[in-house]
């Protein structure tokens, strides 16, 4: 007859980090579906490449660090990182982009800092930024929506492009990207930014074919997909409400003010919300608990700062989309934010009664 003893509390809610991670992965499905619908197989291929590379990297590093492999390998965090990275890559980027990015994210950004829970930066975004500054060429070859392509590309075409650079018919990425009219396609944000330097107004830029009726062909639906996934996560209480709300609000306010001041040189609020990686960032990137702020107040500040930075970088910075940079900058600021947003402990600093 044996008694075992344990420290209180003895019961537990029975939720686990890994199930949390899994939930987040599931929530990306609507967005990925939209991506597939409008841009073809590219991102799906990159996601699978990135996941494979991430698992291999995680396994290798864990083995090197003499850690228990199974529980950590399948806690879902590496997979989530890889999925997020795969989503944010240009669909037709060469295969080694996602592989290098994934290895970098897991080995350098995550494991070198001590693994899950210890990385100061969001691995997916750090890898994205690394790729962007290392391989600007490949990382800016955005594929236009399928509907605007001069040719149909199938799964086999996409695979061939990603792995060899050419379709079976011999078209290069550059050629695929070129519109019937001879224009190379770019993302809506990029289009607006480029046009702005050409002296066009925002309204004029909005005429570009990539932008379509609303905020960019396909892009608005992708963002809507991620918004849906995000709402699902909010409903499940898998992510805190404070970060995305303050992020979106902050971005809205900034762009609204700018738009009010000069509608010609500033895109509308909804354009900011529904293009680029805004929704992905709001619900899947900046809500990453590891590299974010922890208290409610801290999260509000964190989100607001991210929103402001996204706007500033989009408006004045060198790169058209800014979510990755903004997130990294906020990650750096997170400990400081935490430091200054500590809640008042019960029974401390009570206001003197009248």
């Amino acid at each position, binding site marked *: 007859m044996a008694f075992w003893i344990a420290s209180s509390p003895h019961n537990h809610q029975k939720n686990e980090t890994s199930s949390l991670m899994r939930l987040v992965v599931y929530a990306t499905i609507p967005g990925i579906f939209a991506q597939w619908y409008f841009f073809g197989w590219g991102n799906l291929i990159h996601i699978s490449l990135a996941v494979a590379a991430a698992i291999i990297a995680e396994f290798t590093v864990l083995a090197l660090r003499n850690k228990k492999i199974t529980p950590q390998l399948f806690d879902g965090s590496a997979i989530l990182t890889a999925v997020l990275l795969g989503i944010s890559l240009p669909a037709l980027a060469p295969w080694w982009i996602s592989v290098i990015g994934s290895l970098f994210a897991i080995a*350098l950004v995550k494991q070198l800092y001590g693994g899950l829970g210890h990385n100061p930066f969001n691995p997916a975004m750090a890898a994205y930024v690394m790729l962007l500054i290392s391989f600007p060429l490949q990382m800016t070859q955005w594929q236009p929506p399928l509907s605007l392509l001069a040719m149909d590309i199938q799964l086999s075409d996409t695979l061939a492009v990603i792995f060899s650079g050419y379709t079976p018919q011999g078209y290069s990425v550059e050629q695929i990207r070129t519109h019937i009219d001879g224009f190379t396609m770019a993302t809506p944000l990029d289009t607006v930014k480029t046009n702005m330097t050409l002296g066009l107004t925002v309204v004029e830029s909005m005429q570009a074919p990539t932008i379509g009726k609303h905020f960019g062909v396909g892009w608005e639906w992708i963002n809507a997909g991620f918004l849906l996934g995000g709402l699902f996560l909010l409903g499940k209480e898998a992510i805190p409400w404070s970060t995305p709300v303050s992020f979106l609000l902050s971005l809205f306010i900034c762009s609204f003010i700018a738009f009010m001041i000069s509608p010609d040189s500033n895109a509308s609020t909804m354009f900011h919300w529904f293009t680029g990686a805004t929704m992905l960032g709001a619900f899947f990137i900046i809500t990453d608990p590891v590299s974010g702020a922890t208290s409610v107040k801290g999260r509000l500040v964190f989100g607001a700062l991210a929103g402001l930075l996204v706007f500033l970088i989009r408006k004045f910075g060198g790169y058209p989309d800014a979510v990755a940079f903004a997130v990294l900058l906020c990650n750096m600021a997170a400990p400081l934010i935490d430091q200054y947003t500590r809640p008042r402990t019960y029974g401390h600093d009570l206001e003197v009664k009248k």
Partner: protein
Amino acid sequence: MKINSEYKELAWQGLWKNNPGLVQLLGLCPLLAVTSTVVNALGLGIATMFVLICSNATVSAIRQWVPKEIRIPIFVLIIATFVTCVQLLMNAFTYDLYQSLGIFLPLIVTNCAIIGRAEAYASKNPIKQSSFDGLMMGLGFLAVLVVLGAVREVLGQGTLFDGANLLLGQWATGLRVEIYSLDSQFLLMILPPGAFIAMGFLIAGKNVIDHKIAQAKPKKLEQAIERVRVNFEN
């Protein structure tokens, strides 16, 4: 014999154990900024080494006459003098390299490795040892620069000794080695973040080697510690 071991120790300290780049982490600014190619690294390394030797020797020579309150300004003066001289000389004789090292040459003045050695070693030791220390520290620094430069050059642009002619004259053009060739460079390694990452790995590598060495060493024999009795009779 004793002198010999002293120099040996100095060399060991400068080249490995207390390497200014990998251990003291001094002078990171030039270290990270100019090491995009081997040649740049070599140029700055040699310049730094030269300044280090000269400043160590001078500081050591004058150490008797320098009051402690104004030692730092004097060290800085001496170092600045040598740096300016080096700058002028490079400008005169290796103009192209001078152009490519640019702003980092005058920055040698603020390289903490130099003033650090002046303060920590040269100001307390005779000229010979100080000069030797300068040489060894300089070599250690140079070695780190060159290794870092090599790593970054190979990873970043797939070459080695690119632009050697800037430093060594026309004959050196042939030194350039093309390891591999890519359509797109791995820009990260050429940019400063790459320098940080590569530096981190170099330091990690050094630590691994140190660890191995420490493990390989047989444990020193236990020696009994004489306990001191705390009574006050004597």
